[in-house]
C-alpha cells in the first residue's frame, strides 16, 4: 500500500473555513467595468468575478456564485489580496498562486508575496481539488484581459 502523508487538515485549514462561511467581497459590483464567469462543469461550481480597473489598477473587486469551501474561500481571499494591485502585479500573483497549488517549484520570494494565500499550500496534495482553488482566479484573469466595454454585453 502507498504510504499516505496527506492530512485532511492540510487542505481544510481554519482560515479556509472562515472565508467559506463568511466570504469577503461577496456581492455584485455595480460600477465594475470588467466581469467574467468561471464554471467547473464537473462539479457545477460557478462564480462571477467583478473588477473595477482604473488606469491599470484594481480599485475594486468582488465575486458572486456557488461552490465548495475550497473554491469559495479561494475566491474570497483572492479578492482581498488583489485590491489596489496593478495589472502586472495581479498577473505575477496569479502565477505565484498557480505554482503554489500545483506544487511547481515555488520561487523563494513567492511565499512572502502570497501572504495569507499560503493556506492553500495543502491543495497540491489533492490533485482533484486544484481546479477548485484556481477557478475564481481564472475568471479574474479573463476579466482582466477583457476590453472595458465588453462587460455590458452580458
Amino acid at each position, binding site marked *: *500500500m502507498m504510504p*499516505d502523508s*496527506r492530512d*485532511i487538515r492540510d*487542505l*481544510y485549514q481554519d482560515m479556509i*473555513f472562515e472565508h467559506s*462561511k463568511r466570504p469577503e467581497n461577496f456581492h455584485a459590483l455595480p460600477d465594475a467595468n470588467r466581469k467574467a464567469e468561471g464554471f467547473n462543469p*464537473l*462539479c*457545477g*461550481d*460557478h462564480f462571477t468575478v467583478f473588477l473595477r480597473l482604473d488606469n491599470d489598477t484594481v480599485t475594486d473587486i468582488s465575486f458572486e456564485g*456557488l*461552490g*465548495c*469551501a*475550497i*473554491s*469559495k474561500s479561494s475566491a474570497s481571499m483572492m479578492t482581498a489580496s488583489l485590491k489596489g494591485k496593478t495589472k502586472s502585479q495581479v498577473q505575477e500573483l496569479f502565477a505565484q498562486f498557480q505554482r503554489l497549488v500545483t506544487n511547481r517549484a515555488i520561487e523563494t520570494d513567492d511565499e512572502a508575496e502570497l501572504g495569507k494565500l499560503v493556506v492553500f499550500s495543502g491543495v497540491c496534495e*489533492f490533485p*482533484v*481539488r486544484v481546479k*477548485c482553488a484556481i477557478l475564481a482566479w481564472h475568471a479574474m484573469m479573463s476579466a482582466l484581459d477583457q476590453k472595458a466595454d465588453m462587460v455590458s454585453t452580458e
Partner: protein
Amino acid sequence: MSTTANRVGSVAVGFDAVGFSQDFPALHQLVHGKPLVYLDNAATSQKPRSVIDAITRFYEEDCSNIHRGVHLLSERATKAYEEVRLAVQQFIHAARPAEVIFVRGTTEAINLVAQSYGRTHVKTGDAVLVSAMEHHSNIVPWQILCEEKGSKLRVIPMNDRGELLLEEYEKLLTPETKLVAVAHVSNVLGTVNPVKQIIRMAHEYGIPVLVDGAQAVPHLQVDVQDLDCDFYAFSGHKMYGPTGIGILYGKKRLLEAMPPYQGGGDMISSVTFEKTTYNSLPHKFEAGTPNISGVIGLGAAIKYLARVGLDNVATHEHDLLAYATEQITRFSGVRVIGTAQAKAAVLSFVLDGIHPHDIGTILDHEGIAVRTGHHCAQPVMQFFGIPATTRASFALYNTEAEVDVLLRGIAKVQEMFA
C-alpha cells in the same frame, strides 16, 4: 491490521455479503490508511476474480479475431463470444439471440437507436419523449436527433419525491410523439420507474419505447418480453463486468427494418464498389472487430450474478438502502434527494451548508468512495434547486457495517464544518 476488519455483518439473513466481497480483489485495500468502503457502484461496480480471470484467460489462451479465422483459436474465441450472446439473451429473457447486439455501453446503445431508428422515423415537427430524471446519455442523443430533424424533445415531469407523473405522461402521448426513452432506474434518485405501465401506455398509442436499463440490470430481474419494451440498453461495467461492453436489446422486427449504424467489416454479407449487402442480425449492427475480451468478461459477470442470485442481491441491497435511509434521516441538516416509494440501491443526499465536493474529499480520507457532483443529470439538479449531491450506491458486497462507516464519516464532515 486486517483490511477486512470492518466487513462484518450483512443485513439480509443468510446473505453472505462479506463472503462475496472476498471475490472482489480491489475491495481489499487501504485508502488513505483506512479500509476501502466502496459506495460508488452506480458509477461502476468492482469486478469479481472470475471476470478478471476470464479476460486474462482469453488473452493467454484464445486470443484471436472472431467470425473470420478458420483456425482453432478463432473457432474457440467465436464460440465463447457467441455463447455470451446466448447468456445475455437468457439474462434479459429475450426471445432470440439475434436481438442481442454487443455495443460499447448504454451510451452507444442509445446513440445507435437515435441515429438508426430515430433518423428513419422522427421527422420535422415530431417529438421524442424523455423523462425529467434522465442521464445525459438519454437526453443528448435525442437532442442531436431533434436538432437535425427539426423535431421536439418533450419531458415527462416528476414530483418532488422523484416519481414520474403518469397522468402528465399520458397527455404527452400525442400523434407527434414517435418514441419514448425512459430510465428503468434513476442513477441519481434511485427511483424504479413503472416501465411496464409506461410501455403499455405508449403502445396503446402505437409508440415504441426505449428503456435505459444501466442502473436496473445489476439490481433487479429484467424480462424484456414481459416488459414488452422495444429497446433495452445497458452497460456491463455496472453489473460486475468489464468497461467498454454493453448491450442493445431490440425487437427483431424493428432491428431488421433499421439501417446500419456503422459500416465496416463483419456487418456485410457482400461488398462490391457498386453495392453492399448487409449482414443479418445481430451482425448488421456489429461493425468491425468488437470488444471480444469484454464480451467474455461480461459472460463471466452474468455467471457470477446467476450464482449469487439477483433476487438475493435485490433483497440485500434493499435492506441496506432501508437501513442507510433510516439512519441518515436522523442527522440534522441532511436532506435525502429521491424519496420515491420504489427505489433501488441509490442514496443521494445534501448536507446543509456543505458542498458535496468537500464531503467527497473528507469521506475519501476516511476510505469511503462516493460520487459527488451532478451525476450526469443536470436537469435533475435544476429540478431540486441544488448544484450537486453526494451519492452512496450499493452493491451485493456492501454491508451494514460499511453503512455505519459512511454515517460516521458524515458526522465527521459535519463536525469539521460546524
